[in-house]
């Protein structure tokens, strides 16, 4: 075994790969070979570092230099300058936006300072396609401990004491879930991993599976031991080909090493895992729909009770957990329940991975302890609002969640606080909005998604969501009335109250939450026929300021519908009835005479 004096860790998450990070790896390897350094410097493709805004990322160990926005062409200079001469390549270093100085170690960056990476502990450190690297970081030690030193009841007790709650969105206590499944008697039980991750903009689970797949496999085996299941199933969405590949490699290696399969560690415990693939349905992230999809049936949810722990896959007791929930299990087993429960808040222990997106400077993946405030996440870790705009709201929980506003910025993030504030944790998607975002349009946007993804089984979701969407569209076109707002609210409450599954029960949340927090905006749309954020096209009026107009006719010639009239050198005017609000005149005018209001 060679001893490397230096490691170059290149981010191999889907985001960075889309920017050719695999080529960076190739080029670095080529450079090192040319210089004869291939036995001294190792190049490793790792999982996601999380700082997606600044990717592709290359990290140099052992000096912890964090290079950002690296290109494949940069490989020679990294080798020549940093590897050989020990000189950091300044132009690839991260520049702190306020202090305007280079920061070379990530632990000093605003993005990373407050993060505690537990679920993501190995992402960015190991090659996910090499089981030895997982083992080197205590991989499969937790499974060994469980099988050789603990009883199933003790394992469940540990998970219960840790306070771990489901990271898929609902936040059900994981230990309790395992306990219920363990108590149901059957000749066969199953452990199911929900890797469907349907929330748009969410990529927490994807990153865990791409960057540290073994953590999930190990956790599933531990779960199987504790509840009495010998079979595991991973239901992963087909849109994650890289994660699927990494899981398949991990499964093969785990079986080779005997940490999955028959008689693990010679303890007589059998456990193996199969993969199942989704086919593009958000609703199949709901546990009963997921199970029916795996059974080969139409992916529709069924009423609960009975819950999967009682009657799940093929009617047998099944424990369904999210990827991130599982990712926490091995480290809890090794470091203990006290350690885990010392992080976070009273009722929400540990950390949560969030996918930051929207009008924020530092778009990416973060993991923070529960209890971190929204202000810290958005303004410190997230680096504040893009282009210096004003913060308006942050949507948490995707299409099932609600928006939080300025008055919630100092809210410590945890399951119960978010629900009390009218939103929910969800899977961890956080979409930041600024003053230019119209909240009515945002609600409509989320409804578009849920209307598309509804399975169609129950009337409130199949038809009700469609009607909500139509009404929102009506309002954004300036045709709504105050009665429509009342109806919107009543329909939303009834849909929440009567829908069969979580999709329908939460799809009106964006509507209710935005109406609650931005009522004035809704009223402006229906009473004043005005969109305060300036986003709803049909509510915008284009006009020409006669004082600024010189009559050059450029706008009239650009107008595709002939809505502008006027003589040469005379002020022009726009016929608002004919105007389709395309903005061509606005773009063309060199005198700022076209006014949008």
């Amino acid at each position: 075994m060679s001893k490397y004096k230096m490691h170059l860790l290149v981010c191999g998450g889907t985001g960075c790969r889309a920017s050719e990070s695999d080529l960076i790896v190739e080029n670095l390897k080529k450079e090192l070979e040319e210089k004869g350094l291939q036995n001294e410097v190792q190049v490793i493709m790792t999982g996601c570092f999380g700082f997606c805004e600044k990717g592709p990322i290359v990290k140099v160990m052992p000096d912890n230099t964090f290079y950002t926005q690296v290109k494949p062409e940069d490989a020679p200079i990294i080798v020549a300058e940093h590897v050989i001469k020990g000189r950091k390549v300044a132009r690839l270093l991260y520049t702190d936006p306020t202090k305007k100085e280079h920061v070379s170690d990530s632990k000093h960056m605003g993005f990373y300072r407050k993060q505690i990476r537990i679920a993501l502990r190995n992402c960015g450190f190991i090659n996910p396609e090499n089981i030895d690297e997982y083992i080197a970081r205590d991989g499969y030690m937790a499974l060994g401990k469980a099988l050789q030193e603990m009883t199933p009841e003790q394992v469940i007790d540990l998970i219960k004491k840790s306070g771990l709650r489901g990271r898929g969105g609902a936040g059900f206590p994981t230990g309790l879930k395992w306990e219920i499944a363990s108590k149901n008697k059957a000749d066969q039980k199953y452990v199911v991993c929900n890797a469907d991750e349907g929330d748009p903009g969410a990529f927490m689970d994807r990153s865990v599976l791409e960057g540290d797949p073994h953590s999930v496999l190990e956790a599933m085996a531990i779960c199987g031991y504790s509840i009495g299941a010998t079979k595991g199933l991973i239901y992963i969405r087909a849109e994650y080909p890289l994660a699927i590949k990494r899981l398949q490699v991990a499964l093969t290696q785990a079986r080779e090493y005997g940490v999955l399969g028959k008689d693990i560690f010679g303890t007589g415990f059998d456990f193996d895992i199969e993969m199942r693939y989704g086919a593009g349905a958000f609703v199949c992230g709901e546990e009963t729909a997921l199970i029916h999809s795996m059974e080969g049936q139409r992916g529709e949810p069924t009423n609960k009770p009975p819950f999967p722990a009682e009657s799940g896959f093929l009617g047998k007791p099944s424990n369904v957990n999210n990827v991130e929930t599982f990712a926490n299990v091995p480290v809890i087993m090794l470091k203990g329940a006290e350690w885990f429960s010392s992080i976070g808040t009273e009722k929400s222990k540990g950390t949560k991975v969030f996918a930051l997106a929207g009008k924020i400077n530092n778009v990416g993946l973060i993991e923070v302890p529960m209890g971190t405030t929204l202000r810290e996440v958005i303004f410190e870790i997230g680096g504040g609002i893009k282009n210096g705009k004003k913060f308006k709201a942050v949507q948490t929980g995707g299409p099932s969640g609600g928006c939080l506003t300025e008055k919630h910025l100092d809210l410590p993030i945890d399951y119960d606080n978010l629900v009390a504030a009218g939103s929910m944790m969800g899977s961890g998607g956080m979409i930041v909005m600024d003053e230019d975002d119209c909240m009515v349009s945002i609600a409509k946007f989320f409804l578009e998604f849920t209307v598309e993804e509804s399975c169609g089984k129950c009337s409130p979701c199949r038809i009700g969501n469609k009607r909500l969407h139509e009404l929102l569209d009506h309002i954004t076109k300036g045709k709504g009335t105050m009665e429509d707002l009342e109806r919107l609210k009543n329909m939303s409450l009834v849909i929440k109250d009567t829908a069969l599954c979580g999709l329908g029960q939460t799809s009106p949340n964006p509507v209710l939450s935005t109406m609650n927090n931005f009522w004035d905006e809704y009223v402006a749309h229906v009473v004043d026929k005005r969109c305060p954020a300036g986003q709803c096209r049909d509510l915008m009026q284009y006009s020409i300021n006669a004082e600024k107009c010189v009559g050059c006719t450029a706008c009239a010639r650009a107008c595709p519908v002939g809505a502008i009239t006027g003589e040469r050198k005379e002020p022009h005017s726009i016929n608002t009835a004919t105007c389709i609000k395309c903005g061509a005149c606005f773009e063309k005018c060199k005198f700022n005479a076209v006014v949008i209001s």
Partner: protein
Amino acid sequence: METVKLTIDNKQIEVQRGTTILKAAREMGIDIPTLCYMELHDLNIENKPGGCRICVVEVQGRRNLVPACITKCEEGMVVRTHNPRVLNARRIVMEFILSDHPKDCLTCAKSGHCDLQNMAVRLGIRDIPNQDISAMSTYRLDTSPSIIRDLDKCIMCRRCEMMCNEVQTVGALSAFKRGFMAAVAPAFEQNLEHSPCTYCGQCVAVCPTGALTEVDNTPQVLRALADPSKTVVVQTAPAVRAALGEEFGMAPGTLVTGKMVAALKALGFDYVFDTDFAADLTIMEEGTELLGRVGKFLKGDKDVKLPILTSCCPGWVNFFEHNYPELKDVPSTAKSPQQMFGAIAKSYFAEKINIKREDMVVVSVMPCLAKKYESQREEFSVNGNPDVDFSISTRELAAFIKQANIDFNNLSDEEFDRPLGESTGAAVIFGNTGGVIEAAVRTAYEIYTGKKLEKVEYEQLRGMEGVRSATIDFNGLPLNIGIAHGLSNARKLLDDVKAGKSNFHAIEVMACPGGCIGGGGQPLHHGDSSILKARAKAIYEEDVNKPIRKSHENPYIKQLYEEFLGEPNSEKAHHLLHTHYFDKKKKIIVKQ
């Protein structure tokens, strides 16, 4: 049995553990409205997807409203079935359903019998808001020989899917697409004609809206009646007389044979005959066939096909041709009574009254929708002229009688015409599951043993269980009889036949649960299976009241053989009264 105590609408009740809130409430006389839920208790059929959300009730302590049809009672539960929260929710949900439903009640075939319409009335819906901006899910109309699919009216209750897949195991219908456009249709949205559909019509029998209805053939019948050059002959199936009265407000199980005949005469049919006559004829032919095969078997013939399967049910014949075409020469070659009647009417009877075949129009009144399809099968015609021109269902006849403003309830009983109107008790029991084989046994026994049957009732062949079996002692020869109704049960018996494991000598199959009395063309039961039981009882009553109860004793049948056919299975009988089957296994061809 463990019980739980709970409170519904402030009243305490104690029920068996596992009882749903809906059933517990019904025990207390509280009728929670339901739409997609359907239970045919006596047939062990239940549809409860819990999808319509009309039956939602409030359970104290639960965050959301729950569907009463699915939610099981728990100790100490406090349920409210009609507080303002529940009433508001039900109304809004109903408004949603109606907002995506065509507003053509005035001309819809289901108007007056529609579960959705009835629910809208019951819930007091007066307005459907925002109709001007509401999109509707619309689809292509599909017309087959028997069934019309109008998916615009589908409310995703899943009853048809359940009947077709679980009760019938035909698999012609399943849910497709998702969300707003989701509905239930054949695979790849094909027409029914290109699907494995057997036209049994059980989907039509349970559809709560006008999404699935029967093809209406009364206009063609009316045109024939109006044509002075045509002699219009009508035949009525046994199951019709036990159900037609329900359409006129009579209790289920009221026999209306005499009124039915009177109504048909009043409508202007030239001859009102009885399919039961042809049922007696079927017994002659099929009974002879059965004994023939058994005889050969007893003599040691290894190639003879046993069990013999009945073939009077066209839904069953379709199912057979789709799923077991390799067993084509196993069923009886006898045609169904409807078709035998048509063949005899347009030959024997046409001759008797001296008219040309083309100038006779044969109409059948059937409890069945597959009969429409059957009458159009090419092999049941001569030079393009069908043996049976039109088949109308019990429901269509009732509508026809009403259109003609005939006061059905006050009609005096009249008798069938002769010679094709006389029948025995054996014929009338064809309407029930087990009836065909019981009729066959009555005749086969006497022919085989040469002894007289003192007691003609065979209770061991009767009942509502899906698969039944009995061994009848034919004077020392034990004849093993199998009976199935509902095609899933037929499948069970046929799988044994296919595997060579069947011990039966004869199997009777009816596609519809309950037999023909539960046919797809009968008055709608709206989920009340006691109606089916009442009809079955009426059929057995009619049998008891008949002077002659064995098919071979029917004097007009004897006359038919003497004057025309010769003897059962003669060449002429074979030509007119027997048929063969086809391989109809469906292949899906995907065109590039």
